[in-house]
């Protein structure tokens, strides 16, 4: 196990995609210390910015102790191993991750798990915007794996999801599940507006209240329970909506009936 401790509070962005179990694998502490990172516009060595120690424990493969909110691209594309961050994580954490596990004992920043393919990301605090969502201009959203956030998530999360599961135990911001085509999103508390806008497939389940539903969803019925994945079932009853009609979509939106009495006046007449 490699333990990284930042030597200072970073003001400038630190790009450190080398902090990944696949890269560290088989390298000595000295070799790891000489890996290239960037601090602002200056090229540095990992050892210039972090204290690097090795312990005999096998897992996790890497621990970052204390705040790393300016340290970007940690675990980018990682395939194996485990990273634990005891503090806040920087942007693009686990971007395009293909396997292994990342745990954040703090908050995560934008684009965490962006376009991830497989693996597990657990965030014990909040996640910022664009959780699991792809890079600008791309529609290649998260394809597989699982993300669990204990706190809240920001806006535009789970965009273009095409597989895998996202579980949010707190609240979700606007545009949650924008244009998803497959996979599942579960929000245990409340969801912001434009929920599931332009979705063409997949499912989104909200156990709390929704700010406002897109007008382009049509009610399909009420359901008692909804399966999120093999390990989790959400207890309803839920209104079931189909949409987004603007995309001729066939996505399913499950919204708690008891938590959303405001919907009854509009939709109950169609049931």
């Amino acid at each position, binding site marked *: 196990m490699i333990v990284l401790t930042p030597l200072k509070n970073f003001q400038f962005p630190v790009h450190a995609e080398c902090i990944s179990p696949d890269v560290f694998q088989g390298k000595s502490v000295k070799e790891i210390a000489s890996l290239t990172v960037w601090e*602002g*516009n200056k090229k540095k060595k990992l050892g210039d910015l972090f204290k690097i120690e090795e312990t005999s424990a096998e897992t996790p493969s890497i621990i970052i102790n204390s705040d790393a909110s300016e340290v970007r691209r940690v675990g980018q594309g990682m395939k194996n191993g485990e990273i634990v961050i005891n503090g806040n994580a920087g942007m693009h954490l686990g971007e395009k991750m293909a396997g292994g596990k990342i745990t954040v004992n703090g908050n995560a920043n934008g684009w965490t798990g962006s376009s991830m393919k497989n693996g597990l990301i657990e965030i014990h605090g909040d996640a910022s*915007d664009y959780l699991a969502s792809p890079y600008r201009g791309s529609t290649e959203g998260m394809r597989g794996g699982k993300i669990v956030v204990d706190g809240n998530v920001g806006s*535009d999360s789970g965009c273009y999801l095409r597989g895998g599961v996202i579980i949010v135990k707190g609240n979700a911001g606007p545009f949650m599940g924008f244009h998803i085509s497959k996979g599942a999103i579960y929000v245990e508390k409340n969801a912001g507006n434009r929920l599931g*806008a332009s979705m063409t497939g997949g499912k989104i389940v909200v156990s709390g209240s929704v700010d406002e539903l897109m007008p382009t969803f*049509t009610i399909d019925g009420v359901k008692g329970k909804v399966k999120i994945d093999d390990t989790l079932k959400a207890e309803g009853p839920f209104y079931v909506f189909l949409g*987004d009609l*603007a995309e001729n979509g066939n996505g399913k939106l499950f919204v708690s009936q008891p938590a959303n009495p405001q919907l009854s006046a509009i*939709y109950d007449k169609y049931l």
Partner: protein
Amino acid sequence: MSVINAVTCPICGCLCDDIEVTVVNNEVVKVKNGCAVCEAKYMGYKSEHRIRQPLIRKDGKLVPVSMNEAVHKAAEILANANYPILYGWSSTNCEAQRVGVELAEEVGGVLDNTAVVCHGPSLMGTQEVGIPTSTLGQIRHRADVIIYWGCDPWSAHPRHLERYTIFTEGRFEDSEWKSYLNKVKAAAGKKKLLSAQRAGLSKKAPATVAESVVFNKPPETLQKEGRKLIVIDVRKSMTAEMADYFIQVEPNKDYELMQALRALVKDEELDVDQVAGVPVEYLKEVVETLVNCKFGVIFFGMGLTQSAGKFRNIEVAISLTRDLNMRTKFLIMPMRGHFNVAGANIVFAWQSGYAFGVDFSLGYPRYNPGETTSMDVLLRGESDAALVIASDPGATFPKRAVQSLVKNPLIVIDPHMNATAMLGDVVFPSAFVGIEVEGTAYRMDNVPLPLKKVVEPPEGILSDEELLKKILEEVKSIKAQKTKQKAEGA
């Protein structure tokens, strides 16, 4: 005395190039064809608010210094910075912008233009879904349905209506100016006619009485032959006064309204009776007008880019336009603000691949709004220096971003003592592009136009391009010296 015609007006994205300027003794004395803002610019350029010489802040006060001292100071700030911002660029020519990209690359900085606070979201929207658009002449010749959504050309692009849309003669469509006058006449008699005629000259507003918000059914005139004007906004703007149909959308509900229109264009039924405060039955009539037109166009402004949804609002507006092409010809265009913000996007893109928010800190261009725009960097407090040129973030950025800008060394290049210059540490006066300096600018439809020099700049005042080249040279020489010292040290 000399009269110079076909001058391109360096103010807004309309880039009217039919301005006639009269010059006596190297001073503009008369401007013809321009709007009120245009006249103000040609009068204001020589005002007492100009900066006359380079300034550096010493003991808290800006004091005059030599050009060399200012250039050296600016270059030193940039060359030593770890994460500098180079912001602005929208009110200068492409020639200066080209030097700007090289400077940003040389100092490993974040290069950004004012699109970040105006149509950056529009560019991001096009990155999601593309954009069916055209040059403005295409609309002049062909459009019979013209929609202004979240924009008020009468106030922000005063000659847009008369040059490109509803009040212009095209090959296949006529101007609606006469029938508009008749309408106004019928409605309000002679007094209003006179004020409307003044409106045609884009100088004074037609005076009108406040009405209460009542949702009107779409008028039958929406189905008529000829050009039709629809305005959608959260308030009844000056442009809305002239519309055949005005839809007052609830604030922050444009996204829902457009998505609903998309569903209606696809003949879907909605469960709801109203969207964004508008009855769905009225929306269906609007959709009828849209799908039955010969050639429709949506112009949109910051009513969409700056309200909730931002780039998703643009994305859905474009998607609506795209969907309408299944039924007829429909195009869409952003109402670009600064006269050469389009040029800044274009120049940045051809040199780096990205139109705004370009981060060179890793030695190559990177782009990710939310991460790499000047606003992101400032709000997170990551930068340690800034150069601001041809814009005024001191007056246009939210307070916290300006506080972050002021915390670090700030270099400002501008003709006027604007808010940013007042806050600056090194301030360069520059010549007015399009009045004292020639060059190229891009219209809102990406058509390049030449800017003219009609008068000489004041003695000793350089152009943006010249100033930037000086700073770039000085940066290179400081860096070369550093490398040499390092080599000698080793």
